[in-house]
């Protein structure tokens, strides 16, 4: 591990004297300790198999417990759903499981699985859907059969679709109740633009428009072997399981290849954006921009810069805005990174209403400092150490290793990306940190969102620049849905989202 700093020697010296005087236990002060090297640790890597139909399988045996776990990740997610049916993939990810198979209802599946204490679940994301199982090794065959039935022959029963829609309507009706939910939603809209699929939000009308056929069609279109990466871990014999999986999936003919969505990314329009919320005494400030992809050569310098700027308990934002100024409990952020699209750059803090503008200025000050002066050797080393010394926690279980490899496979990244990351982080220089700060966090390009009660602000936002008021009124349900909900409508007598 790294050599320790020497600037505390004086303190340490006085401590030693003090200890001697008081006759306390013989302990070594923290900054004088020497650490043995961490024992060599080579986590087991999963075996990768690619079938002729394009399906990729990872095997990761793990004999600690007599359990088997399977996860299939399937290309195609909510960013590919049609604009008029936003919510389709969310409903799909729920009803795929609850709607059952051709021969078993979802409720019957619950009974079947609970009796074996096994689980089969489905899920959805922006670029993929998943279907997973967990069971005792001894039950693997019947549970895996049911898993395959759900994978190949789901029924998407109408009653469960309706239940899932009701849950989604509830989410819509409640989405302005809490500041954090407003901020999360409006941040994405500002950073990506309201028409970008990464900022899409479901509305009553778009959820109402989704029909059972849409779910069946989605399934037909995307659940094809060449779109699937399947990982299996647990207590199995790799040779036998490989034979079983080949036998199961080899005969599945290749289908249409899921296309990567063609999405245009444009930078946000700079300025201040304000959402009025009269029942709060604290403002949330979010400074937003498009971030970068993880295959960007700057990714490693950005990771170190983020660590210095806004990551964790020893970052500048935490030190200066929270600890030194006492302006916030929650403060942090940095340049956003994602595997498949520009991440969302977000520098966020929550501060009392009457320090809203002071808070914005405090964040600006930290941005300026990050750009004007390179971190000193100590600060850079600490940030790198933070990433490198905690590296072991990225692969301290076979499951984590499997998960990493599946991600790289899914996003077409090199399978040794993690190993590369480690060596690249070590090479980042102070100059590179400053360069990426200048390149990716530019004050005059940020969209600054403020959600709060402006009657209590220290200064009006208008004193900082032009302010756009953001209307968060929830569009009412279509008439047919309104009738279905009963006369009261979604928000009770007074309706939803009235100002």
């Amino acid at each position, binding site marked *: 591990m790294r050599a320790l700093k020497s600037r505390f020697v004086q303190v340490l010296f006085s401590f030693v004297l003090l200890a001697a005087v008081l006759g306390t236990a013989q302990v070594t002060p923290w900054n004088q300790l020497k650490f043995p090297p*961490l024992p060599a640790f080579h986590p087991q890597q999963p075996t990768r198999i690619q079938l002729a139909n394009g399906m990729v399988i990872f095997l990761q045996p793990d004999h600690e417990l007599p359990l088997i776990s399977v996860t299939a990740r399937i290309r195609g997610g909510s960013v590919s759903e049609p604009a008029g049916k936003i919510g389709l993939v969310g409903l799909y990810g729920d009803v795929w499981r609850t709607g059952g198979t051709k021969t078993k209802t979802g409720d019957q599946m619950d009974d079947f699985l609970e009796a074996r204490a096994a689980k089969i679940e489905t899920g959805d994301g922006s670029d993929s859907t998943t279907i997973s199982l967990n069971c005792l090794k001894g039950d693997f065959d019947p549970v895996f059969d049911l898993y395959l039935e759900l994978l190949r022959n789901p029924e998407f029963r109408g009653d469960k679709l309706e239940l899932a829609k009701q849950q989604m309507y509830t989410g819509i009706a409640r989405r302005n109740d809490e500041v954090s939910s407003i901020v999360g939603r409006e941040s994405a809209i500002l950073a990506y633009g309201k028409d970008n699929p990464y900022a899409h939000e479901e509305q009553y009308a778009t959820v109402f428009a989704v029909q059972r056929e849409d779910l069946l069609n989605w399934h037909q279109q995307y659940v094809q072997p060449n779109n699937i990466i399947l990982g299996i871990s647990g207590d199995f014999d790799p040779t036998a399981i490989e034979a079983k999986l080949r036998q199961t999936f080899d005969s599945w003919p290749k289908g249409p290849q899921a296309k990567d969505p063609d999405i245009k990314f444009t930078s946000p329009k700079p300025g201040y954006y304000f959402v009025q919320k009269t*029942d709060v005494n604290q403002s949330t400030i979010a400074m937003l921009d498009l971030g970068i992809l993880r295959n960007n050569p700057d990714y490693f310098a950005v990771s170190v810069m983020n660590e210095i700027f806004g990551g964790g*308990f020893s970052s500048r934002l935490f030190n*200066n805005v929270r600890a030194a*100024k006492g302006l916030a409990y929650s403060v942090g952020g940095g340049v956003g990174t994602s595997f498949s699209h520009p991440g969302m750059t977000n520098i966020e803090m929550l501060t009392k209403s009457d320090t809203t503008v002071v808070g914005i200025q405090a964040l600006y000050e930290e941005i300026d400092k990050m750009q004007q002066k390179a971190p000193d050797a100590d600060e850079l080393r600490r940030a790198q150490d933070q990433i490198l010394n905690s590296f072991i926690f990225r692969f301290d279980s076979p499951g984590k290793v499997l998960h990493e490899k599946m991600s790289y496979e899914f996003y077409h990244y090199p399978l040794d990306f993690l190993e590369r990351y480690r060596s690249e982080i070590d090479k980042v220089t102070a100059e590179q940190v400053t360069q990426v700060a200048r390149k990716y966090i530019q004050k005059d390009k940020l969209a600054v969102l403020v959600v709060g009660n402006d009657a209590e602000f220290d200064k009006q936002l208008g004193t900082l620049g032009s302010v756009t008021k953001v209307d968060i009124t929830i569009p009412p349900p279509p008439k047919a849905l309104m009738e279905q909900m009963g006369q009261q409508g979604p928000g009770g007598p007074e309706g939803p989202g009235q100002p």
Partner: protein
Amino acid sequence: MKRRYTALAALLLLVVMTLPLAAQDLASFEKRVTVKTLSNGLTVLILRRPEAPVFSFFTLVDAGSAQDPLSQTGLAHMMEHMAFKGTPDIGTTNYTEEKVALAKVEQTYAAYESERTKRVGQDPQKLAQLKKEWQDAMAAADKFVIKNQFGEIVESHGGVGMNAGTSYDDTTYMYSMPSNMIELWAAIESDRFANPVMREFYKERNVVMEERRMRTDSNPTGRLIEQFLGTAFAANPYHRPTVGYASDLQSFSATDAISFFHQYYEPSNMTIALVGDLDPDQVMPIVERYFSQLPAKSKPAELTTVEPPQNSVREVKMRDQAQPIYVEGYHRPSYLDPDDAVYDAITDIMSNGRTSRMFRSLVRDQKIAAAAAGFSGFPGTKYGHLFAFYGVPLPGHTNQEMQKAIQEQIAKLKSQDVTDEELQMFKTRTKADLIRGLASNEGLAQQLAIYQTRYGDWRELFRYLDKVDKVTKADIRRVANKAFQNSNRTIGSIETVMDPAAAGKGTN
């Protein structure tokens, strides 16, 4: 609120069902757990789990916000924040001078506070002068601070998951590190609890105020919970917010915090559990060497106030700019009650997963709620607390419908036995939850520390399963009839009022 069951839980419970796991695991754990009470009274547990060269720890201080002194609500939580501020060796450029400066801060604050709180005869000019003296003293003390050095040491040496928490019942500290850092861990963690320094106290008070604004003032559910608990409890400190009332947060001092520390952060009132790639023969002597620094004092007195029986229904009805939500709670005794496992059975049968009664009745069949559950342990378990039910109405449905449907489910529980399947499900799930907690270093450290503290023996973690196995259908009916009485009920709700002027004017 309780999280839904996870896939992992269910799969793990099978291990329990097919193997005589409780007994076997206890035996296997007996071999791997080392427990030692140091001469100062501190209890240390080490469990070897050499899966990867890492370890996790969990430190539990058996004092929480229920121990906050009168007019000093939020002090236990404040102390938790201060435990990250360092020691004479961590976080300062010159402690000798800083110590003098910090004493000056306290002295000037006391003078300011005494003038500020005068009911009669306050002198504004004097007040301003005293405030300035206090602020100048703080600025002078700040010059010695190395900001967040404690967190920086942990993180730059590979520590992850650094956190702490304050509940009504206890205060906890945790993170994980590579296993070669065990001595560094012992050095800084023992220093932290042997020699805490109250630097930057008044800035941190502002940080906590922001935390209060975020969790309570600016959050409808947070507002409801504060009002609800304030209504349900009268004598027990569970009626006060853990984060503290705003006026207390703007009043208490670093002197108050350190006095709380000396009273409750006493070695015999603390337990530390370490789990991971650690050889107890090597590690226990290191832990002992460092943690023996903590001076032994006397164990703090137990809280003796017992909440008197509630003899009439209470209600808090909030009119707020938020969608409706309904909750009702019933008093029950502490976790030491012989029926504790029966309450757990009721929680499980009512709320655990897609087959639970609340989900099937309110969500699936009646289609009136987006979510509904009933659970024990609110807002703590150490003292008499609440068994609470809640319902989140679907658009177009009302709190009245939640109340009616919840009452129907309670009536059913009181008048009819649960099914054999339901009872069996509870028993197997409980075993699953236990095992799930054992699957990670973090989870194990937490469980060992909690059970050691709560029962004086970590083995209760496994022995509890015997109590679970003994729960009968008759027990469930008996306990439901005892606890779920109308006169023992507190109701809380949010009714939607979108007009800001009308909101916040609740009835009751």
